[in-house]
């Protein structure tokens, strides 16, 4: 299922389409075999939801909870603990920029500014009017010697400099 399938459960009106059917369900079953408890599969299951839907809605959490024998409230508690799970829809291109000290001292804040400008997202955490871009600041990405690292969805890009940002953004347009 593509990201454009989102509005179906955003409105809350349409019938809920489960994430875990067919291939995705088979994937979850393979994952369950790796852990001695069903609960152990929670983080991987949430990743599967996010890969399918682009974010994790309350109804998705309820589905996961039922599959793993947990309560929806428990699943929500876990989702909110981890910063990489989206509880709201985000732009098609989700951009994470490191601004922790080692990158900061090498000019990460200017990279953030350039990204906000080039993508039209304007503000941190806001999505650009065309729905394509969301830019957020994150803490250390574990690549401090390659300041400034930027994650665009699953693409990990090293050594981004402000003057290279416009070109980088163009590649994803």
């Amino acid at each position, binding site marked *: 299922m593509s990201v454009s399938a989102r509005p179906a459960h955003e409105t809350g009106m349409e019938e809920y389409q489960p994430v875990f059917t067919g291939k995705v369900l088979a994937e979850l079953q393979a994952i369950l075999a*790796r*852990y*001695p*408890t069903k*609960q*152990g*599969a*929670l*983080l*991987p299951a*949430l*990743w599967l939801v996010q890969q399918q839907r682009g974010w994790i809605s309350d109804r998705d959490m309820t589905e996961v909870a039922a599959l*793993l024998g*947990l309560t929806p409230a428990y699943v929500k*508690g*876990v989702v909110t*603990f*981890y*910063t*990489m*799970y989206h509880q709201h829809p985000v732009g098609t291109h989700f951009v*994470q920029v490191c*601004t*922790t*000290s*080692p990158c*900061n*001292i*090498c000019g990460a804040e200017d990279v953030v500014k350039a990204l906000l400008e080039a993508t039209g997202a304007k503000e941190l955490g806001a999505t650009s009017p065309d729905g394509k871009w969301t830019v957020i600041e*994150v*803490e*250390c*990405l*574990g*690549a*401090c*010697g*390659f*300041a400034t690292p930027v*994650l665009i969805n*699953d*693409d*990990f890009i090293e050594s981004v400099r402000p003057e290279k940002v416009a070109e980088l953004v163009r590649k994803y347009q």
Partner: protein
Amino acid sequence: MGYPHKPHPKETAVLSRYFGDPDARTYKGWVKRGGYEAWKQAQTMAPAAITEAVKESGLRGRGGAGFPTGLKWSFMPKEKKKPHYLCVNADESEPGTFKDREIMRWTPHALLEGTAIAMRAIQAEVGYIYIRGEFTEPYAIMEQALAEASAAAVFGDLKIHLHRGAGAYICGEETALMNSIEGKRGNPRIKPPFPAAVGVFGLPTTINNVETLAAVPPILTNGPAWYKKLSLSNPKSTGTKLFSVCGQVQKPGNYEVTMGFPLKDLLYELCGGMQPGRTLKACIPGGSSVPILNRDETESCLLDYEGAVEQGTMLGSGGVIVFDDSADLVYQIMRLARFYAHESCAQCTQCREGTAWTTKILERILAGQGKTSDLDLLLDLAENMTGKTICVLSDSCAAPVVSGIKKFRSEFEDYIAGRRRPVMVA
């Protein structure tokens, strides 16, 4: 280190020998380079003999605490009554540290081989490699390597699984990591009980860092005596260590040197020194959680566990953060405090409140609204944050603040007295 620049003649490339060589990533390429010989050897050894060899080598944990690896393995129950687990800590999130990422990217089989050997030593049937969620590329490479090795039936009955994190520094703390594997929030647990008694899924568990485990195969093939001899200063620190150097140096990157190597040489020779016209001001040698060194201390520091302690800091994870004379240390310390405030799991009051208030006070100082009493307040807070919480994240926030104020007090006072223009808005 071979990537992204050629190794320096003063480096000792054991772990980094094949960095930058994509063929070494493949199963075939690894075997061609002598890979999995150590694992074969381990399979002929009794578990206790493997542990003994690692003890003899003097290898200490590279995740931050420097705990002797063989000794840690020996804490696992000898008589097996329940399943045993190994957790591999590939959460690498300590600011300044990016070495485990390179091990996984270039030599994934070195990690898998070390993992298998450790599993035999502690008699574990299942091993989880916990990779931080942002490490998309290392994850894919590890996945491929694991698939190739499994297809070649290298590990016999051992089950090795990858587990992807989802964005939380605290999951690098060993018991938080175990909770995270169990499908829980990543809150550190109160110790004791220690993981060797009650670990992941309540069963006996050992946890090791990526670099620690990658060092095990060469120890077996070359012998513990060889490893033990790799020591330039204190015999309690043996082997080679990857130092991730970042910040204001000409050539940041990973450098592998023998324990006891002078920090000065690492910075001025291997890393090409400061940018033109700049001089060294300060350095954090072991990841953001250890005290800051001033220039004199940096230039006298020997890179081993004891050498770092001698300068009043710690070797930690080996993440070396460099600041030159243009750096605003007040701002950078605020940025580190903000990191810890963001990453606190909020279980302990001292940590939750302490990290938040430390950040607020530093922001206030940077906004030109600091009071003279703020520095004492920060030190007071820091004292309350040290040694009083479930894990040491709280202490880690205090370390750069306390050492920063002690060694660079005038920079803070300049903001407070209005001698320096505010750089933040209140």
